């Protein structure tokens, strides 16, 4: 069922880094393509929330979203992942983008429900903000900066 996955290697430095923001959490994501950048955003977000090694990829959630532009699309992607986490009580570890355009994305995320015996939820991430959101591509390398409210 998940044979089309780009296998996720948890060399997390490749996916994201944190930057300082006084009130909240600043994250910069990286990818060799726009698809990979969005995958990195999912991995980075959930690496901050929990220990990804403890999460089994057993539940599958289809995601289709749109945005008014690419930055809005990224925020909406993170919004959707946070919704699955906060309301559906999921921890997600694998992310696949099937189709992506400036204003449209189709893909899925895989993970499992939070099990208080097994998982540690390290941080409560309230939301992905638009503050200073930036997405750029230079010489085939994509990156994006997002500030999360904690």
């Amino acid at each position, binding site marked *: 069922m998940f044979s089309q996955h780009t296998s996720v290697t948890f060399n997390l430095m490749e996916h994201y880094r944190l930057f300082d923001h*006084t*009130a909240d*959490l600043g994250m910069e994501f990286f990818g060799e393509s726009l698809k990979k950048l969005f995958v990195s955003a999912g991995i980075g977000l959930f690496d901050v929330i929990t220990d990804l090694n403890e999460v089994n990829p057993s539940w599958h959630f289809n995601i289709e979203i749109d945005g*008014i532009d690419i930055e809005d699309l990224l925020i909406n992607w993170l*919004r959707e992942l946070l919704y699955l986490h906060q309301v559906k009580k999921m921890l997600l570890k694998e992310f696949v983008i099937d189709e992506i355009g400036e204003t449209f994305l189709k893909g899925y995320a895989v993970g499992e429900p*939070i099990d208080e015996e097994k998982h540690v939820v390290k941080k*409560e991430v309230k*939301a992905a903000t*638009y*503050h200073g959101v930036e997405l750029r591509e230079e010489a085939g390398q994509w990156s994006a900066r997002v500030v999360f409210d904690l």
Partner: protein
Amino acid sequence: MKKKKRNNTIAEKKRTMAQDIKLEKIDDFRWSIPKAGGMRVPGMIYSSEKMLESISMDQSPAQVANVAHLPGIVKYSLAMPDMHWGYGFPIGGVAAFDANEGIVSPGGVGYDINCGCRLVSTGLQFNDVRNRISGLVDALFNQIPTGVGSRGKIKLSRGDEKRVCIEGAKWTVKNGLGCADDIEHTEDGGALPGADPDAVSDRAYERGIDQLGTLGSGNHFLEVGLVDKVYDSLTAAAFGLHEGQVTVLIHSGSRGFGYQVCDDFLHKLTKHVRTLSLDLPDRQLACAYFDSPEGAQYFSAMACAANYAWANRQALMHLTREVFERYFSMAPRDLQMRLVYDVAHNIAKKEVHVVDGVKRTLCVHRKGATRAFPAGHPHVPDAYKTVGQPILIPGDMGRNSYVMVGTEKAMEETFGSCCHGAGRLLSRHAAVKKAKGRIIYREMEDKGVVVRAHGRSTLAEEMPEAYKDISDVVHVVEGAGIAKKVVRLRPLGLIKG
């Protein structure tokens, strides 16, 4: 999608501008940001020379200038001395917009709608608790849901949630968790008018279903303290406070319900703002005209979340009273746990203010700022009418907190607003780095403060050095005349998420 080189020069230019903000000294406690570029009004920052150094180190002065770009802003874009870098609006920001020509902005309220503080006085003296703090803090920690995604014992049906949206703290009291006096001592009687449950999304209701009566995580806390200094005995007596008295300070908000309301409307208004041809310096400043269907819808949904927060803090106080009664084996009439006041510090309110001699209806945004109304104001509870509204200003977990009182000067200058806390100095990331190898809860115990928290990282992120010195903050607001010190509280023990 075809790859393209994205042009970020505008964003980069804006960031550079942010670092170039010039502050002009007005007096020892006030600094002006002169009108420049698209700013419709100047900015004004309350700060001492000493505090200015940390303020200038982050982007909060630029955020004060950014807010000044928004339509209908009245007089100036303000920031309190606890200000620091937020998202869109600075934390510690106050901005008032004309109700007919101005905007309302979810970013000007924040995600934790009606995050606020509630101070409870008790009939206990320091000697009654001196040797029992550790057990009391354990009992509070065991009984009050705290931490990431904490779920409460109160399960709400959708119908209940909608009633909470309208009735706020009154719903909690009606359901047996409190008394009528609690409502009298809560800002706006614990329920903003104009709440429309139909303006709230299903997702917000889903997030709020099991979070009433939960403290949450991050900087939220419940602290047992004592009054260790009285500055104004007349006002302190009116507030029912005296030296040596044990108090409880609760800091929490609207939990996931409010975060979702904010996020839903940022999403909607980011699209909507494109139709208004506004050139916003930051997307997080997305807004709608207050007097428009979109603005009205946000304001009604925000009122629902504000009311959820008041219901939540009321429930938290009730749980606290129950723990005290059991732990000290005392009846309520002997414990005398009385609500001094509950005040919001993340909110937008429709208020009437006199601007240049003319009464105007304004939408006042307080983002990390507290309402500070003076004696005689109709919105001050009857019991405090002769002295003014209590202002609750928590410090970091190792240092003092203050109770102040509103002044006429605040009405004239800050739309009746004051600071809300110490204000962060270090990012959470930097605080964790600084705390490496240290045992923060032990350091706190050495200072005489018993701390219980779920995560080690929470304690590191929240350690005293991560915050400005609260005494510097209150020195500025008192020096500027926008609030007056009444009593100082000293922490004895606290629980955190």
